[in-house]
């Protein structure tokens, strides 16, 4: 081999695919998630190297890209999966930039003989792109051994193995339940090359996510409201049923409702700025502050 490649050429090759652009957008629009982004970068780099090896005749077998996303509710699993199709398409790994989302209902049938055609139809529709199975652990119900989910898993495994070049399967679900799912289906675990863990967001990241969501929807927080929002996030994180970014999104929807009510009650002239601004009182009126104070008191008196 006389031909040598400078690492700069690799960079140029990566640039050519348009992947850095997608990664940059990922960085801009998704806050935090450092391990996830790191892994996506690795995959992107690997695919470029693999392409190069193929061109030089060093190509081995095609890399397996089936993935499992695990993490707590609201940590961005679905959002990242949606981007995955675009990234893999830009890298030329999949032929089409399309993603089919499926859940247990779409895959598992209701009577004998219903499951296979149903699963196959979804698989066929997803071919050439990415199949995203949300809450994949629900496919397997260990308490009922005659559950049809088992059949879906078998078909899925077969296609994941035999038609790697046609389909990338992404499984997602909560960490503990997915762990259980994989331990009961060892075949599934071994066929998935990339297990990506989605960490919980920190308080600062959640505040930044809230700000980003508001900006995207053409709202903004004034100074006092921003302070109140930071306190709100700190409170909300300690309450039960906290679902990371999803809780923040719901909170913002409620802020918007309160803002609308406030504007109505005030009456008079409404400026464009009024329509965009979320005020401190919109946030402070939240039940969360009360619950939080209660929790603190309860904490002291707890038996």
């Amino acid at each position: 081999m006389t031909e040598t490649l400078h690492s700069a050429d690799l960079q140029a090759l990566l640039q050519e695919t348009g992947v850095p652009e997608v990664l940059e957008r990922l960085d801009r629009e998704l806050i935090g998630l450092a391990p996830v982004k790191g892994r996506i970068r690795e995959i992107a780099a690997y695919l470029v190297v693999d392409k190069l090896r193929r061109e030089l005749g060093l190509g081995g077998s095609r890399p397996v890209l089936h993935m499992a996303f695990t993490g707590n509710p609201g940590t961005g699993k679905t959002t990242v999966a949606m981007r995955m199709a675009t990234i893999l398409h830009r890298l030329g790994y999949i032929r089409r930039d399309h993603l089919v989302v499926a859940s247990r209902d779409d895959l598992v049938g209701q009577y004998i003989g219903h499951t296979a055609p149903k699963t196959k139809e979804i698989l066929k529709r997803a071919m050439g792109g990415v199949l995203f199975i949300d809450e994949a652990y629900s496919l397997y119900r260990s308490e009922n051994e005659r559950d049809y989910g088992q059949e879906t898993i078998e078909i899925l495994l077969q296609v994941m193995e035999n038609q790697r070049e046609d389909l990338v399967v992404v499984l997602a679900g909560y960490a503990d339940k997915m762990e259980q799912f994989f331990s009961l289906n060892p075949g599934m675990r071994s066929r998935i090359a990339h297990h990506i863990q989605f960490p919980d967001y920190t308080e600062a990241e959640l505040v930044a996510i809230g700000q980003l969501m508001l900006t995207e929807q053409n709202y903004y927080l004034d100074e006092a409201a921003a302070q109140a929002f930071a306190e709100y996030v700190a409170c909300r994180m300690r309450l039960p049923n906290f679902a990371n970014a999803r809780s923040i999104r719901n909170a913002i929807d409620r802020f918007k409702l309160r803002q609308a009510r406030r504007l109505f009650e005030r009456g008079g002239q409404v400026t464009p700025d009024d329509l965009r601004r979320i005020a401190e009182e919109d946030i402070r009126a939240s039940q969360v502050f009360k619950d939080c104070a209660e929790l603190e008191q309860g904490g002291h008196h707890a038996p």
Partner: protein
Amino acid sequence: MRIHQGTFSFLPDLTDEQIERQIDYILRNGWSVSIEYTDDPHPYNNYWLMWGLPMFDLKDAAGAMFEFKKCREAFPNHYIKINGFDPSPMWQAQRVSFIAHRPTQDDPGFRLKRTLWSDGRVQKYGLEPYATDKPAGERY
């Protein structure tokens, strides 16, 4: 003799790659693909058996190719054709149909069948595939 039905039937047999590209053409036009098979090659045999349901919502040829290969595995001794149905208003009809798999390169062909009519004063002519002399499923 070679059976000539549908598009491409005067060309040499399509390879899998060519079939996949034809399916891709069908999908790019927004038509849906279906697969049918038969072992009765009579030209007036309009009702071939369906291999599964027509595939709506397909984005990539791989899905249809998957089904075609399954069909060929199950019925290596049948004719298999691939159809493209155009669901758009004013068309709502099959736009393309081609034979993708043949059981043999040398079909025995057709017998000319004479039927006497009107006490033998009139003769009617018909075609009958030699293949259909044997029962269905054992013809090729």
